[in-house]
């Protein structure tokens, strides 16, 4: 696992306005919901169901941004964009692996924060 901190809760903390319970709640939601969305992208990739890939990536954007996972900012948008226009589809698996691997590390770091 990378030592580099992959998330940044600055934006979430700004909204929380000092309410740590809210931060904890949102981190828990992220940890609960995101694996399901990653699973939907993987399943969509396997069946080449591009609308499903687009939909899951689209839904992931706000939470990835809110958790400050900057390294995935462009990745998740590239998956969504390529799936939407069904262009550069060959790039999606690689993007997916980057997304999936990074998120695994993010989950780990968040659980241990």
């Amino acid at each position, binding site marked *: 696992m990378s030592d580099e901190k992959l998330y940044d809760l600055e934006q979430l903390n700004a909204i929380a306005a000092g309410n740590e319970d809210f931060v904890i709640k*949102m981190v828990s939601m992220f940890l609960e919901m995101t694996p399901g969305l990653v699973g939907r992208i993987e399943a969509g990739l396997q069946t080449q169901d591009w609308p499903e890939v687009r939909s899951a990536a689209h*839904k992931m*954007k706000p939470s990835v941004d809110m958790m400050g996972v900057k390294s995935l900012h462009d990745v998740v948008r590239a998956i969504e964009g390529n799936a939407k226009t069904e262009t550069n589809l060959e790039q999606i698996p690689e993007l997916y692996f980057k997304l999936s691997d990074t998120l695994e590390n993010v989950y780990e770091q968040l659980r241990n924060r």
Partner: protein
Amino acid sequence: MTTFEELLTTMTDNFSVFVVEDDEFYSEVLEYHLSLNPDITVTKFTNAKEFLNNLDKNPDAVTLDYSLPDMSGEEVLKKIKEYNSEIPVVMISGQENIKTAITLLKDGAYDYIVKDEDTKDRIWNAIRNIREKEGLKKEISELKQQVKKKYDFTSSIIGNSPSMKKVFAMIEKAVKSNITVSITGETGTGKEIVAKSIHYNSPRGKKPFVAVNITAIPSELIESELFGHEKGAFTGASARRIGKFEEAAEGTIFLDEIGEMDINMQSKLLRVLQERELTRVGGSGLVKVKCRVLSATHKDMAEEVRKGNFREDLYYRLLGLPITLPPLRERGNDTLVLAKYFIDEYAEENDMEKLKLSSKAQNKLFKYPWPGNIRELKAVVELCCVMTDSDIVEDEHITFNSTGSIDTLLQNEMSLEEYKNRIVKHYLDKYSNDVVNVAKRLDIGKSTIYRMLQERLV
């Protein structure tokens, strides 16, 4: 940018926001963020169907995700606007699309916000602006109600005399119909209050009331004042300006002192009233006239028509329902009723104990002829409220200042001849040097007046 604390201090009423968002994470963030203001109540919906089923709760604002699972953002927006076009809808989209944004804004969306790091501030601003706008709308509505209450003629026009009961009956008829109304009465009898009462109690009450005093506008400007002008229509017309008729829109225009209107302007006004359309000065396009017309004068308009000072066709066009306001001297006990009303009003406005009129004071007020009518009575009463040092207004506190007052005139102690000259001069001034009319009114010969004029006695 307004801070959260500033926002808290400016918002006090409860404000209901429906958040329609299928992304639970984002929905949670929005709810938390908006609920930081205790005045905002957030209700979350994860799909369009559930939200639309609750639309009858009429939220104050809606934040609507563009990509819902069961319906497109455009469709949901359309359904909201069909139900109630007044509900402000802030569209929130996962990606920026200018074409979509333009379409949604054209369809009535209040704002279009893209989910990014600035979203929370933009939503704050949007909700703040909506609340400010709603606050202003409520304020305007309340003020309109207050104005309506103020001009409820049963409380704003005071009097129990038989002549005023006739006036009330006529006002009621004017309120219920859309007829043109002409109000006549001496100066200070309350013609404008009657006009406002008719307007604010009529179905047009929520539309503009525009009063124009014909004598207050120079004759060369009256046409552009009433009908507006185009840019460059005359020297100084640097921009297009709408006139009073257009300003009144579907409300009421009140033409006060109509009897003073220049004869050339009368023809132009007649054409506008006949055709129900006007042309701005310097323009060629026709503008529809939708307002109701009320007019007032202190003159005997039938007499003005006979003398050729006022067009007969315009007179009949404006006559409609004639309401004649009696002078105060012919309203019997109304003088005291009104005096007591003004005393109470003065005491209330100035946080004073209620004042009473002594019987001598009542007698003095009752006997005075009130040439300035109610306007004069109000001024006299307010002055005596100031003059008294107790809670009783005595007769010595009452001072009449009217220039037409007989008491004042008598105080000058002139000779009978001098009084005669003054009286004739007063009548000649009042009736625009119309010797025949003055002679008839004073029951003296025309030659007497001509002689007085020749000898420069008047």
